[in-house]
């Protein structure tokens, strides 16, 4: 089932990360299944322990099913100094989930991440590919509401 993706890449070790991204992006729940790891291992002839090491090392990869919208809240020092822990608490309250969990309706997954490169607008979070800066607790509630409304 991953043949369409594999076709795009030579079976060399250095394509591992590209292939994993592709697989994750193409999964409706934005994650890499165990079955996918085995397929990649066969395709690249790379042992599964190495692939598992790579997937768990990088925070962008997940082996757990995730929601439609992945919230990545920056917890690097500038955002921390600007109060990202309050934002984090508010997000957890609002969504009623903890770190790396997904809401029951499958709409949101909450993750923490390292610097997103927009420290001038700290505290910052990213939802899917969009950046949201200068966050306040009120702003966060509205962002969530807006996205829910979109569905």
């Amino acid at each position, binding site marked *: 089932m991953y043949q369409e993706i594999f076709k795009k890449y030579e079976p060399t070790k250095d394509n591992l990360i590209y292939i994993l991204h592709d697989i994750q992006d193409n999964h409706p729940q934005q994650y890499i299944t*165990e079955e996918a*790891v*085995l397929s990649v*291992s066969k395709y690249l002839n790379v*042992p*599964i*322990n*190495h*692939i*598992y*090491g790579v997937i*768990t*090392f990088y925070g962008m990869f997940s*082996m757990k099913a995730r929601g439609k919208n992945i919230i990545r809240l920056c917890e690097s020092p500038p955002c921390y100094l600007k109060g990202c822990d309050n934002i984090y608490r508010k997000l957890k309250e609002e969504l009623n989930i903890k770190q790396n969990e997904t809401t029951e309706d499958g709409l949101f997954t909450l993750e923490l991440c390292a610097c997103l490169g927009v420290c001038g607008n700290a505290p910052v979070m990213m939802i899917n590919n969009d950046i949201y800066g200068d966050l306040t607790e009120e702003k966060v509630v509205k962002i969530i509401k807006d996205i829910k409304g979109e569905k």
Partner: protein
Amino acid sequence: MKMINLTINNVPVEVPEGTTLIQAALKAGFKVPSLCWHPDLAPTAACGICVCDVEGYPVPKRACATPVTEGMKVNTNSRELRELRKTILELVLANHDVKCPTCVANGKCELQQLAYTMDIDMEKVPKLLEMKPIDYSSPSIVRDTNKCINCGRCITVCNDIQTVYALTFADRGFEAHVDTAMSWGIGNSACVNCGQCTVYCPTGALREKDDTDKVWDALLDPTKHVVVQEAPSIRASLGDEFGMDMGTVTPGKMYAALRALGFDSVMDTNFTADLTIMEEGTECVENLKKHTGKPVITSCSPGWVKFVETYYPDLTPYVSTAKSPMSMFGALSKTYYPEVHGLDPKDIVSVAIMPCTAKKFEAQRPELARDGVPDTDIVLTTREFLRMIHEAGIDFQNIKEAKPDEGMSFYTGAGTIFGATGGVMEAAIRSAYFLVTGQDLENPNIEAVRGLKGVKEAVITIPGFGDVKVAVANGLGNARKVMDKIQQQINETGSTEYHFVEIMACPGGCVGGGGQPFGNGIAQRARRGEALYKEDANMDFRCSHHNPEITKIYADYLEKPGSHKAHELLHTYYFGRDKFKGQVEKQTTGLDSHH
């Protein structure tokens, strides 16, 4: 070789170029404190304990990963270095499940020793550890992540030395830990149970599955008749624990200790090592005579057997169908032995003392059982046997030597060298030569296949046949090299240059087994191996075919090597396994009569 001069703590020292600081310091007489470093393994520079000051560098350097340079001035011990090391060690201990009194590594643990010598006050070390479940999924190896210090030695051994690819680092930062793929557990990984990770683990995080309770239960049950066998390498692996020289060969004390523990019958795997040579040697000679162009590959090492089943299932038809010496003994202990002694096989508990964690897995193979009861009921590693000797309070060094029970215990020098890499090959050549020519080798010492070199090759000329090309590999990474070559030759030309190949999963062979004492490195393995060759050299009988008990068991029971009865009891078959969980996919040999 270019030599480098440097001074360490003002002591001048000269070492070859490429030497690391930590090794140069040893030569200068200073043991730099270290935790993740091991002389047998490439440095990972993971822990940072071995930091040293090097003149001209603003920050301390890790001695394990710093090559020496000309004129280097090194200080291994300053106030700052001590503080640094203590801080690192406290951080390690804060995340360590400190259960020293009941830990299998107690007294052998490198973390324990370092914490003691560096005067750590445990009262000042915070407890940050979040306990995680212990992995009991494997029949051979237990992994307790709570005792892991993330040194990475097990990963280096598993991936780089053994090329088994079972262990990896997972996650990162504070969450970084050693794991199997998908956290499936060791029993559901590519692990072949070789246990090298347990030997190199500096703490008790990786250890054998302890079966000593089962043995005590059997010994203390009057309705059971408990039979024991000991692998060749065991006799060279006990003495040093009790203050004797490393590699002292102590069969008499070993038998005496087993009698003191209460075993009903003490016999010897060395006997079935000789028997293996008769069966495997015959198989090999038949193969030579047929000029098949295919090799016979040894099957004694259960880590190797699972490895070939997992990574080279297409080569399993060339693996000798002869069971390992342990499993031959197991089969005979439930058939021949009770028949001779008028016992009910159901009352027999067959115990094996092995240098090997993979033997625990081998004993559980369904094809090595009779009516669902394993031929070998319980396997203990050297470490477990040593613990039993300690628990029973046996004064091993001074115990009066004893003799084993007759029937399945007499052995030749050929049997005893099974414990060292190249030993099976040498033993087989001695008997194959006899089987072809009807004469013994003038010089039974086959030096070309001895020693710790990863891959050894030799050509033996047997009159009446011609040249026999042999290869010997120890360590699975080396086995892979030989198998890749054989696979390629067979795929391209339909035949291979090799006639006979010996593979041992562990570097050094069984003396370097995964069940051997903690910290049993290459240097110790070399001593133990040499000791076995010395025992061989001093024996009256040095060829398996001259073993009088072997002659007797064939005359009384097994008829002749390769007979129908021998096949039924002493031969087996193999499988192909998947590379992910090591699960059986299909039987690959034994479906036809015989290859």
